[in-house]
């Protein structure tokens, strides 16, 4: 009966997981507010946000460690929000890896299979497969205390995938690793998860990690999902200044909006910088605004080149970052960071501290926020 319902309910077009208007508060603090999300089978979604934005709470509700105050969670056609965590068949990799210190690598990996009363021979075979798949050969009889951080993370992933979970959750699973190791593991895991077609949600505060692993990224901000899309979509077309500010190196320049016959004008200092294009432009009645723009979206030159320029700024620092060079400029009281791709440098003018330059940018790459 239940199996029939199951087969009927989850056709290929249906999402593997859907979260419907989830809400959760702790005391009087609303931590997760009306979150809707859906994932296709095999899709990897990153929940990206600053600490305290509610992303871990959202993940814990999917895992079953927190109960939503409102809303439903449907996994493969089955409503799971009232099931205890041990009956959801969702595996999680924790930031601390949560190794069982008294069990060897092999027994850590076998734990979930034993909890499911899988036969001894099947368990053994599955454990061997996972050990091989995660390159843990030769470490089966070690205890977690005898492993490096990277090896522990592999064991945590092997232990989670060994039970063939309906979903995998990664909670800041890479943040304890060194940068080089982290990037290697991200690549390896990304390939592995795609290969095994595991539906995955990963929670991170690291934009690089989210972009490196995920098919889609959901930006979370004070309990709400601010924007969901592929990495390109949210990077190229952030819907708000806060999303923009979360991705890459950004600048916040103080400006004013005033009304003219041809529409609102954005002025930085006393110069008319541009006539904004988008509907999201603040009305002229809101005078002080912030203009948010990425460091890489500003170009600099030693003479004004278009109407969007801001007037002269002074270079106070130049740093070499490998694939690009970074200038720190002073525009009156504002400090502005500009990144310039390194390969373009050959036919551009050499700039250094003390030089006066003009900033120029495409208005469509700016977002606005009300200045308080």
């Amino acid at each position, binding site marked *: 009966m239940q199996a029939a319902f199951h087969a009927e309910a989850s056709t290929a077009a249906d999402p593997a997981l859907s979260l419907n208007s989830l809400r959760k508060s702790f005391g009087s603090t609303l931590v997760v507010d009306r979150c809707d999300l859906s994932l296709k089978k095999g899709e990897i979604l990153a929940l990206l946000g600053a600490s305290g934005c509610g992303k871990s709470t959202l993940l814990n509700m999917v895992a079953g460690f927190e109960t939503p105050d409102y809303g439903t969670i449907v996994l493969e056609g089955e409503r799971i929000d009232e099931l205890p965590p041990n009956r959801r068949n969702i595996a999680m990799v924790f930031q*601390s890896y949560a190794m*069982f210190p008294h069990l060897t690598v092999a027994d850590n990996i076998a734990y979930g299979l034993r*909890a499911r009363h899988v036969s001894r021979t099947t368990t053994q075979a599955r454990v061997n497969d996972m050990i091989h798949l995660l390159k843990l050969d030769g470490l089966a009889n070690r205890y977690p*205390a005898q492993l490096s951080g990277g090896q522990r993370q592999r064991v945590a992933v092997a232990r989670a995938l060994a039970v063939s979970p309906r979903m995998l959750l990664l909670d800041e699973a890479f943040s304890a690793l060194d940068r080089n190791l982290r990037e290697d593991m991200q690549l390896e895991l990304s390939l592995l998860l795609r290969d095994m077609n595991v539906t995955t949600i990963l929670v991170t505060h690291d934009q690089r990690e989210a972009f490196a692993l995920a098919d889609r990224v959901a930006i979370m901000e004070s309990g709400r999902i601010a924007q969901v899309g592929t990495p390109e979509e949210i990077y190229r077309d952030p819907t708000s200044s806060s999303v923009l500010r979360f991705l890459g190196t950004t600048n916040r320049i103080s400006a004013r909006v005033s009304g003219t016959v041809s529409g609102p004008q954005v002025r930085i200092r006393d110069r008319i910088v541009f006539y904004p294009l988008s509907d999201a432009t603040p009305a002229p009645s809101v005078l002080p605004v912030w203009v948010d723009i990425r460091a890489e979206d500003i170009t600099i030159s030693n003479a004004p080149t278009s109407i969007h320029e801001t007037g002269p700024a002074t270079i106070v620092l130049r740093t070499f970052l490998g694939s690009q060079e970074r200038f720190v400029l002073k525009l009156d009281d504002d400090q502005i960071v500009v990144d310039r791709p390194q390969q373009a440098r050959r036919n551009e003018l050499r700039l250094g501290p003390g030089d006066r330059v003009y900033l120029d940018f495409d208005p469509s790459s700016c977002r606005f926020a009300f200045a308080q």
Partner: protein
Amino acid sequence: MPARSLQRFAPWLWLTPAAALLIPFFVIPLLLTFRNSFYSDDPMGMLIPGFTLANYSKIVRDPYYLGVFENTVWAALLVCLVSIVMSYPLSWVLARAKGSGRAFLLWTVYLPIYVSVIMRVFGWIFLLSDGGLFNQALIHLGATTHPLQMMNSFPGMMVGLVHRYLPLMVLPLATSLRKIDDAILRAATGLGGNRWFVWSRIVFPMSLPGAVVGLQLVFAGVLSDYVIPSLMGSPHFQMLAPAIYYEGITNASWALSGAIASAVIAIVALFLLSANLLVRRVAPWASL
């Protein structure tokens, strides 16, 4: 002496105050007791030097002494059992508690240690004696017409011993259980373990090292406890420490009491050693 070699001895120099106290007042008397156990007693209360195993052979052959050993080991094992069963829930709550709740619980565990054992026994007398609070209540409620013998009985002594040694079981156990953090419990549940599975595969095995330390402390404590058996125990259930005191002080049989004392130390040492070996065997991970 050059400064370099002085530095090599520096760690040992720190031990001198402790050694100055322990060697004359603990190690030497202990060695003397051990030496005395091979001497013989004479009726005048003097020790006759020599070398004889007669004292040891007496305590192994005499049913009275054997009975005292048996009683004490049995009582120690029973206190171990009762206190470990009582400690698990308490230690679990203590290990999971945070902030001021945790501080309060810890304080309730420590408090009995701060109060002199004599004062605690007086407390029990007030509650358990023939005219004590419990008996008065029982008589008042009509549950019994004559007061029940609770002081100076085996159950009364057990109550006193468990009360005295429970903190020594709770503290190491709570320390072990505290190492099981939320993430480990969540991982254990999330991977499909129900409550029983998580308890038997994760919580219990991870608590073993602490439980064994607790058992060692309680066992060694009960085996050599003098105050509780003398003040709360039954005259028909002799325990070792009062027996040693009786032989030494009342009977002036220093050689015999030395032999009993040496045997107690040997039993405690054997128990501690085998418990350590057991931990190394069942929890090799704990010493990594």
